[in-house]
């Protein structure tokens, strides 16, 4: 068995069935080993960044690490944006990159890039494998590190000659992992748990703020049950959309800069904020210091470094949200929140949206609402970045599906490859991608992957002929000096759809929308729908 065959064996041991990548000479032995087996399918993407995003989409839906593979040099550096994106969103991804022969390392030979160095601040951990017999241990550790504690991407860089070398020891996949510097905390500390329960019991107006960590920790059910049992309301961050269905009586929307005013009023009105799996970043809570002076804060996170990073003194509780809320469900909690909930309902009822949208074209809010209501209950909605993301987050009607977007890095062009990954993770589920015409053009090469694999993807381009969110910013801050944001009327979407064998839909009015969406969603092959939106429509 050579190194490459050992790599494939390791992936099989981890139960990997799908990987995304692009080959090259430095990873050729691995592709030969992939060719000689049939339990793992390799999906050829069109650019390496897409391999990383596809692995991310796959990981988020399958709730297992996603795997992407590239060659050395430019193939590997193309992956970096995707790794940074997965890192910011804590998505478990294992990235395998080929490297030049180990004897040539450090000599700047053809297609050599120092990937460990280049990715050091964008991965949870990285390996450069120099000894072929290390492969089983390295893979076992990489998958373990990626998928435990605070999840994130792990890089395995393997020189070409190491892939080709014969193993000296018999292949044996380690059963256990023992890394002395890496022991993630799972259970909440007993005395901190007691403090948390005591604080909840003393509060009159508690509020849970759920972040992406709740979904990453597979703890949606536990948190929903906790809210229902003790009648505690919940708001979410953008990455936390999906923790509760939109119509749940205890759900009060997304907070933050781009969130619902009543969600932010809930935060202002609360006397206790329980933050779970959220970074408390600037878009969600612009002035965290003001917050901590006003109310008590309990911060629950699997990563102890998140607690106190952006927000000052709190009651910290480090651990796995699923285990913690399972325990809290059985805790001795007695609070009466009737009045508090009633106040929040008033807030919600009295919130009037004063935004004015163009009457002539498609109203983006109507688009998102109608689309998500028409989608399957367990459908997957993937939003890109920009105005389309904010309109989506604001208006998405969560039923029992998933809402995917990149909240941390805000990488344009995420949605199409991430949707491809999601589709491979859940082939029977409906996957709908919503993307602006700017981000679409950053990732439209992936239409090739969709076409070749006959994936029945559903792509909606929210087209306003601008990099809309930047345009909105320039209008507000720079007196409408639109600098470098115009996209004009390209590409010709009908011709693009035709060249990739996609059904094409074009909608330019609200009236035509429902019927067009019905036809679009029931299409059994890949479909591209372009919705014309007025460039003056705003997110705020």
């Amino acid at each position, binding site marked *: 068995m050579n190194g490459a065959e050992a790599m494939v064996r390791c992936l099989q041991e981890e139960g990997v069935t799908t990987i995304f990548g692009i080959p090259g000479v430095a990873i050729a032995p691995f592709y030969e080993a992939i060719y000689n087996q049939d339990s793992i399918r390799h999906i050829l993407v069109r650019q390496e960044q897409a391999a990383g995003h596809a692995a991310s989409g796959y990981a988020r839906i399958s709730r297992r690490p996603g795997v992407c593979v590239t060659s050395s040099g430019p193939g590997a550096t193309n992956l970096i944006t995707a790794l940074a994106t997965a890192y910011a969103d804590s998505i478990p991804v294992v990235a395998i990159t080929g490297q030049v022969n180990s004897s040539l390392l450090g000599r700047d030979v053809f297609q050599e890039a120092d990937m460990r160095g280049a990715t050091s601040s964008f991965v949870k951990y990285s390996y450069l494998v120099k000894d072929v017999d290390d492969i089983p241990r390295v893979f076992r550790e990489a998958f373990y590190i990626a998928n435990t504690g605070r999840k994130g991407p792990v890089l395995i860089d393997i020189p070409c000659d190491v892939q080709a070398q014969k193993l000296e020891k018999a292949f044996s996949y380690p059963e256990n992992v023992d890394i002395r510097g890496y022991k993630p905390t799972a259970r909440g500390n007993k005395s901190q748990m007691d403090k948390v329960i005591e604080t909840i019991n003393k509060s009159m107006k508690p509020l849970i703020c759920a972040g992406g960590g709740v979904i990453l920790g597979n703890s949606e059910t536990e948190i929903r049950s906790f809210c229902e049992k003790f009648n505690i309301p919940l708001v979410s961050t953008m990455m936390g959309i999906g923790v509760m269905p939109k119509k749940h009586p205890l759900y009060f929307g997304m907070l933050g800069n781009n969130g619902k005013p009543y969600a932010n009023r809930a935060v202002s009105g609360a006397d206790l904020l329980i933050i779970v799996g959220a970074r408390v970043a600037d878009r969600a809570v612009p002035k965290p210091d003001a917050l901590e002076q006003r109310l008590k804060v309990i911060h629950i996170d699997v990563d102890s*470094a998140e607690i106190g990073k952006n927000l000052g003194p709190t009651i910290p509780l480090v651990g796995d949200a699923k285990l913690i809320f399972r325990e809290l469900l059985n805790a001795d909690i007695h609070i009466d929140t009737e009045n508090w909930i009633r106040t929040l309902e008033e807030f919600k009822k009295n919130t009037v949206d004063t935004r004015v949208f163009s009457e002539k074209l498609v109203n983006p809010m109507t688009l998102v609402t109608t689309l998500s209501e028409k989608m399957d209950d367990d459908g997957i909605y993937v939003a890109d970045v920009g105005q389309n993301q904010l309109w989506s987050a604001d208006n998405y009607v969560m039923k029992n599906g998933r809402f995917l977007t990149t909240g941390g890095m805000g990488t344009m062009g995420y949605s199409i490859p991430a949707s491809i990954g999601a589709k491979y993770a859940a082939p029977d589920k409906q996957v709908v991608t919503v993307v602006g015409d700017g981000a679409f053009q950053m990732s439209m090469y992936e239409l090739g992957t969709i076409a070749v694999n006959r994936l029945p993807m559903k792509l909606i381009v929210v087209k306003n002929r601008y990099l809309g969110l930047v345009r909105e910013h320039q209008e507000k801050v720079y007196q409408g000096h639109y600098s470098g944001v115009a996209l004009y009327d390209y590409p010709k979407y009908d011709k693009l759809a035709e060249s990739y064998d996609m059904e094409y839909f074009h909608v330019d009015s609200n009236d035509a929308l429902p019927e067009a969406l019905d036809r679009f969603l029931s299409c059994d092959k890949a479909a591209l729908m372009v919705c014309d939106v007025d460039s003056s429509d705003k997110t705020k």
Partner: protein
Amino acid sequence: MRGIFSVLVENKDGVLSAISGLFARRGFNIDSLAVGTTDQRDISSMTIVSTGDERTISQIEKQLNKKVDVIKVRRLDETRTVELEMLLIKVAYSATNRAALIELCSVMGAKIMHVSPKYMIIEMASDPESIEDFIMLCKPFGILETQRTGTIAMAKK
């Protein structure tokens, strides 16, 4: 405030750059950094001295703990810690002040390692504050070169 960290790490390539990279990326100061192997060959010990407000110092501790190759982080209490730093200093002298320099060394507990007709190389191992004092006192003679190792530290209990 000052934070002194005693950090045990895996003795592997890339670990030092991972640690210094962490400080650079998050904008933490490194006042001094000393690295060496321990009695266990696969473990290195680092002493890192940093300054910042309480939140920064506590973030440093947590971020260090997050690193996979970091085995153990101890934040040392300044008042209950033995700190030691090594100094090599090349100081010029003349016939008139030669005796004064020798006397200064003897008072401060510094050792003369090498004497040439125009300068001496002096070694001093002491706490960082005494090292600072000694350098200041050498200034009038004329300092030609200094080398400092960075602080190493150990908790008293």
